[in-house]
């Protein structure tokens, strides 16, 4: 038998499997996590909380799914139809059940009869928040700030461990006037760099765009870059040439305000901005740069993470 040729794309993932840090499930991008992996993540979350503590954000946690009606209203399908995941269920009668079981037995396409439920998988932690926030009425004069953490789903199977289908995203979401939300984003652009510096990781900050779908998406991406609406803090994980976005700093202008009827104290459409932290990506960056033996990590990094 020929020795397995090492392929760059899979080697870090293989190492994570071998060390038991990630656990294979048979689907690319869908992995279990070990206790150590989670402990590193807990340390990272606590560090983020310390950096954000002075702002006194309101903590809100949603399950990793959202109402289909809100998802439709969000316009997600205009921009990212390729990434969305919907939840479909069996809604038939006992006769349909018999036929379903027969189809499974015969290895046929049993999913054909599945019906869309009212539930869609959350594509970004902040999506379920906007309609909830809008229901509370006009924002107070000082605006609002929320702290979110959720598993998110994006349908993009990959051997790159930093591109998983189910992953966690921590976010601070600021709502208010244009000045309030752009100041928030500028603050976090500074804080984010300091925070990743505490973790001893190499990084660069750059203007970025979301992965909008298709040819029309190119136009949206160019618009987003031209207006400098998205910045990313990038850390090399799978490759030096294409570093991975581990934090992102987004100014949505009045997009979500208009979409969900969110208004400022003065009755104007509210502006929003968010800072997002890729939970798994930061853990993977730490494992990549400091090694999989946490006891050998620099003392300052272990101290920052409480490890």
């Amino acid at each position, binding site marked *: 038998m020929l020795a397995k040729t090492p392929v760059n794309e899979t080697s870090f993932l293989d190492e994570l499997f071998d060390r038991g840090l990630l656990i294979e499930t048979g689907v690319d991008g869908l992995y279990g996590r070990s206790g150590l992996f989670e402990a590193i993540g807990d340390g990272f979350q606590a560090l983020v909380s310390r950096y954000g503590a002075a702002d006194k954000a309101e903590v809100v946690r949603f399950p990793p799914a959202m109402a289909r009606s809100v998802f439709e209203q969000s*316009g997600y399908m205009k921009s990212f139809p390729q990434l969305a995941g919907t939840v479909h269920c069996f809604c038939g009668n006992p006769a349909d059940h018999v036929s379903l079981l027969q189809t499974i037995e015969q290895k046929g396409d049993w999913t054909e009869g599945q019906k869309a439920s009212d539930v869609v998988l959350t594509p970004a932690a902040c999506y379920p928040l906007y309609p909830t926030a809008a229901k509370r009425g006009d924002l107070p004069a000082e605006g609002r700030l929320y702290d979110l953490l959720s598993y998110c789903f994006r349908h993009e199977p990959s051997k790159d461990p930093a591109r998983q289908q189910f992953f966690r995203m921590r976010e601070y979401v600021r709502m208010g006037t244009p000045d309030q939300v752009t100041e928030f984003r500028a603050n976090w652009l500074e804080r984010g760099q300091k925070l990743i510096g505490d973790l001893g990781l190499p990084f660069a900050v750059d203007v970025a765009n979301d992965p909008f779908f298709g*040819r*029309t998406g*190119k*136009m*949206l991406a*160019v*618009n*987003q870059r031209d207006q400098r609406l998205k910045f990313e803090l990038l850390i090399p994980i799978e490759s030096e040439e294409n570093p991975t976005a581990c934090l992102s700093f987004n100014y949505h202008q009045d997009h979500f305000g208009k979409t969900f009827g969110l208004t400022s104290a003065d009755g104007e459409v509210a502006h929003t901005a968010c800072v997002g932290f890729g939970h798994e990506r930061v853990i993977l960056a730490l494992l990549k740069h400091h090694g999989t033996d946490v006891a050998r990590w620099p003392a300052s990094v272990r101290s920052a993470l409480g490890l």
Partner: protein
Amino acid sequence: MKDQISEIIARTVELPGGIDSLTDTSDLYEAGMTSFGSVQLMLALEEAFDVEFPERMLNRRLFSSIATIRAALDELTSEKAGA
């Protein structure tokens, strides 16, 4: 061509102040056109003039006024005529 462009803008892009006050060089984004509005406008122009904007033309500036759109369409339709 200018009238046809104006008609397509009026039909596809929601502008709070309407299109009547716009001149050839008025900035459509300043007049309230959103990013999605510009994409819809692009698709409608392609259909009406039977052209496809190449990747190098897919930028914010090109769709920012009647004049810039017209210049791009002139270029594309003359390329087509010469082909």
